[in-house]
């Protein structure tokens, strides 16, 4: 077969996740059940092939926990903001589609940023340009250039935090050289 062989190390996070889902669905975390789940996970991952997720091999837990807390807070803020806009602004809300160039070109980082961005206040990914790794973001209640700049900064700061958690060494060095937090223009 022409498939790229995936190393066990690359596949491990997927397998662990599958075992956790298995245990959760059976509501049984006894060793026997987990071993059987692991067997099934390996078989499933072999038979139903997916392109490997390129992890960087870094994961900074100390930065991930505050990020998760801030993220939850932002989800709450986002919900109340959307609710407020829906009730008081409604049909007259002004939006914008903003191009935000990202630093990282790895698929995982662009995907993660897009996911986080879609769940925090006032932004939604409309289009992704993978070749230049640019996200086109639909911002709710973006009335002028100040709001646009704020939205762009928010997205790039989110990406910076994600790079600090699980970006590659090179991305991290580039970020430090840049002097975070920095804002970049849209780049025409």
């Amino acid at each position, binding site marked *: 077969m022409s498939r790229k062989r995936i190393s066990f190390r690359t596949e491990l996070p997927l397998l662990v996740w599958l075992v*956790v*889902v298995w*245990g*959760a*669905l059976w*509501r*049984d*975390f006894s060793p026997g059940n987990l071993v059987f789940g692991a067997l099934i996970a390996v078989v499933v991952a072999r038979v139903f092939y*997916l*392109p*490997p*997720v390129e992890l960087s091999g870094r994961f900074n837990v100390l930065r991930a926990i505050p990020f998760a807390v801030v993220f939850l807070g932002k*989800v*709450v803020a*986002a*919900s109340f903001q*959307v*609710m407020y*806009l*829906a*009730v008081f602004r*409604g*049909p*007259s*809300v*002004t*939006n*914008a*589609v*903003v*191009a935000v160039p990202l630093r990282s070109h790895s*698929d*995982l980082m*662009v*995907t*993660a940023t*897009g*996911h986080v*961005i*879609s*769940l925090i*206040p*006032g932004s*939604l*990914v*409309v*289009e*992704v*340009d*993978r*070749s230049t790794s640019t996200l*086109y973001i*639909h911002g*709710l209640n*973006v*009335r*002028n*250039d100040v709001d*646009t700049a704020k939205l762009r900064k928010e997205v790039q700061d989110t990406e910076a935090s994600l790079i600090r958690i699980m970006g590659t060494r090179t991305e991290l060095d580039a970020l430090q050289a840049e002097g975070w937090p920095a804002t970049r223009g*849209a780049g025409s």
Partner: protein
Amino acid sequence: MTPNATGADAVIDAVTAVLLIVGALMSLGAAIGLLRFPDLMSRMHAATKPQVLGLFLVLAAMGLQMREWWVWPVLAVAWIFQLLTVPVSAHMVGRAGYRTKHLHPELLSTDELEAVVLRAAGQRAAEKAQEAGSAMPHAGNARNGGSEDPNGVNGGPSA
């Protein structure tokens, strides 16, 4: 709910009640947003954010009431799948909406994607004209979405 609740039970019941009510309010907010927002993409905002938080609150309330440790992993898995799938579906709907022009340009303060789409369309037209001249089929023309990657963000990690 336990009748004649005292002490810790009463506190848990009260917290559960607050979580359920706020969660239901979030769903109500999403419904109001769907009704009142003017175009598809602002409606997608309403369909994603309050809904995710609402589900989280309702699941947390369930976890508190069940008083069994095994229910927490199931609830966590349910919410994580929600977190992973909601942005993807919102993105796909928003993207399709933008491409089929289901939006009100007069409600956008800026649209930085429009120029890109126009440029890509121009490029494609030029390529087509060139190909018509040389009569060579080109695989890249089969997709109808311009220069953007057709796979979008729905690559591997969300599976």
